[in-house]
């Protein structure tokens, strides 16, 4: 049984046939995961300095030189790698006195912090499968982002208390701006929102739960939704990026809504980060620095605030190390531009060619975690999953993220 690190579900039931170090056939892998497995052979990076191919050692020593000369380096990415590599990264950041950030939207961090602090109740995906009878996909479309979410946990499987599953015992609600693939599966409970209308929707749900008439939306359908939420025995809300972006700075409202729902019945919240080990990164950062993201380790004591957020840190840094993510493709244009300022050298550690590696001064190839490198990762619900490398790396000198970071650390 192999594991798939294509998204944060970390599916463990993959059957791969390996012949002469190549993966020839895979079973139970979704399309997204299959693309991830296929990527083993396509667009792999080579060690490069200024666009010219060099030996690995030369690329690593150039990276060391840049980081040594930098006064305020920024280490960003971290979400697509093992926890061991992330721990090595935090050690490196301590040594350099660097700012450390991931590339996910800041609003996700806000929700995750509240969940880790215990202000918003959460549960594991296995609890969802065994007990949940109402799944609310709010601003998320798992059919596209986490294809096996519905079939493995949230809607179709039979669980301990949900033997009749989707046919009788489970209901799935979608709140989205468009009729997404997931919304087509639960058309009876699809609530269309105008972009940015999630705060009003949350207020309307609160009003319905209080027995008042909602101000927005189809009143009859909102009351129907209120009745459904009241009747629920064990509900789970899966907030996606759509909802998190619309509720940016208004997370208190969501917390209030969840608290209100929990007065009536059991309701849990399970955020859906996209990358395979975002949750692991937040957890490690919280354990080691006290903050979950956007931390400056300059001068020893961890500092966290608006200046340490990626948008601000990108403008003040004088060297960038991008690892385990593709910041230039994922970040807003202004932040991506700030990262590629003329006098700021960019180092990219990535198994694949990406926008970031194309713009980078130094490129260091790494092994794909989960396929060529083993380790542990946290699933989106915080369950720890350990995995072994599936195949040997194609080239003998291909190092894992952890080994590369350890080498940089050693040289510094």
């Amino acid at each position, binding site marked *: 049984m192999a594991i798939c690190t294509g998204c944060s579900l970390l*599916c463990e*039931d*993959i*059957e791969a046939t390996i012949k002469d170090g190549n993966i020839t*056939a*895979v*079973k*139970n*892998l*979704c*399309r*997204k*995961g*299959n*693309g991830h497995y296929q990527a083993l052979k396509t667009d792999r990076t080579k060690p490069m300095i200024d666009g010219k191919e060099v030996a690995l050692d030369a690329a690593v020593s150039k990276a060391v030189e840049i980081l040594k000369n930098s006064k305020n380096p920024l280490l960003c990415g971290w979400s697509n790698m093992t926890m061991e590599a992330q721990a090595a990264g935090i050690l490196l950041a301590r040594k350099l006195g660097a700012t450390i950030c991931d590339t996910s939207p800041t609003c996700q961090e806000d929700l995750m912090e509240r969940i880790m602090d215990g202000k918003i109740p959460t549960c594991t995906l296995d609890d969802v*499968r065994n007990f949940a009878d109402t799944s609310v996909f709010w601003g998320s479309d798992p*059919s*596209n982002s986490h*294809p*096996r979410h*519905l*079939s*493995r*946990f949230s*809607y*179709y*499987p*039979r*669980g301990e208390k949900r033997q009749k599953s*989707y046919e009788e015992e489970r209901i799935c609600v979608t709140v989205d701006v468009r009729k997404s*693939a*997931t919304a*087509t*599966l639960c058309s009876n409970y699809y609530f269309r929102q105008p972009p940015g209308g999630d705060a009003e929707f949350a207020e309307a749900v609160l009003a319905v739960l209080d027995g008042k008439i909602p101000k927005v939306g189809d009143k009859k359908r909102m009351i129907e939704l209120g009745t459904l939420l009241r009747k629920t025995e064990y509900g789970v809300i899966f907030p996606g990026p759509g909802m998190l972006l619309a509720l940016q700075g208004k997370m208190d409202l969501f917390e209030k809504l969840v608290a209100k729902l929990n007065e009536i019945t059991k309701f849990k919240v399970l955020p859906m980060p996209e990358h395979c080990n975002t949750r692991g990164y937040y957890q490690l950062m919280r354990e080691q620095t006290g903050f979950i993201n956007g931390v400056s380790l300059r001068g020893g004591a961890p500092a966290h605030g608006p200046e340490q957020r990626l948008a601000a840190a990108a403008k003040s840094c004088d060297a960038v190390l991008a690892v385990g993510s593709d910041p230039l493709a994922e970040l807003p244009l202004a932040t991506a531009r700030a990262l590629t300022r003329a006098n700021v050298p960019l180092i990219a550690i990535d198994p694949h060619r990406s926008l970031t590696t194309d713009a980078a001064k130094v490129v260091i190839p790494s092994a794909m975690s989960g396929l060529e490198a083993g380790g542990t990762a946290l699933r989106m619900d915080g369950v720890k999953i350990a995995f072994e490398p599936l195949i040997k790396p194609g080239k003998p000198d291909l190092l894992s993220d952890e080994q590369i970071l350890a080498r940089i650390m050693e040289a510094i």
Partner: protein
Amino acid sequence: MVSAMELYMLLPKTNCKKCGLPTCMAFAVGLLGREKKVDECLPLIEEKKYEAKLKKLREVMAPLENASETGLIIHPEKCFGCGNCVVACPVNVAAEPTRCAVGLGPQGEKVILRVEDGVVKCNNLKECRRFGPNKILCNACTATCPSKAIEFV
């Protein structure tokens, strides 16, 4: 997917009975159920005035040729590989109660639907509830597909 009515509109509509069926509508239903073939409608083949209709009919019927014995058509280009159909299929659940039923991918060979290389594949058609003359019109797999990648004729 085409309907019997759409097929009927492309037939001569003369009820000549040369195909062995009483009406053209019955022939259209036969075409859809893959019990009859386009070539069995003699006027359509022989008479020149139906040439355009025949061409259109063959075009419309082309996707139906790829359907399996149970009438299942898989469009691999649309499939997400999500496995909703694998977990929802009652035959799969009965075959692997400890895996398919709880959302895991199947291991054995008894299942009808399984995801291979990122798209759904169909085996063991004889086990399907839609197989044979005494079929039950089960639609667990098509109703749970988010991208309409599987459909029945």
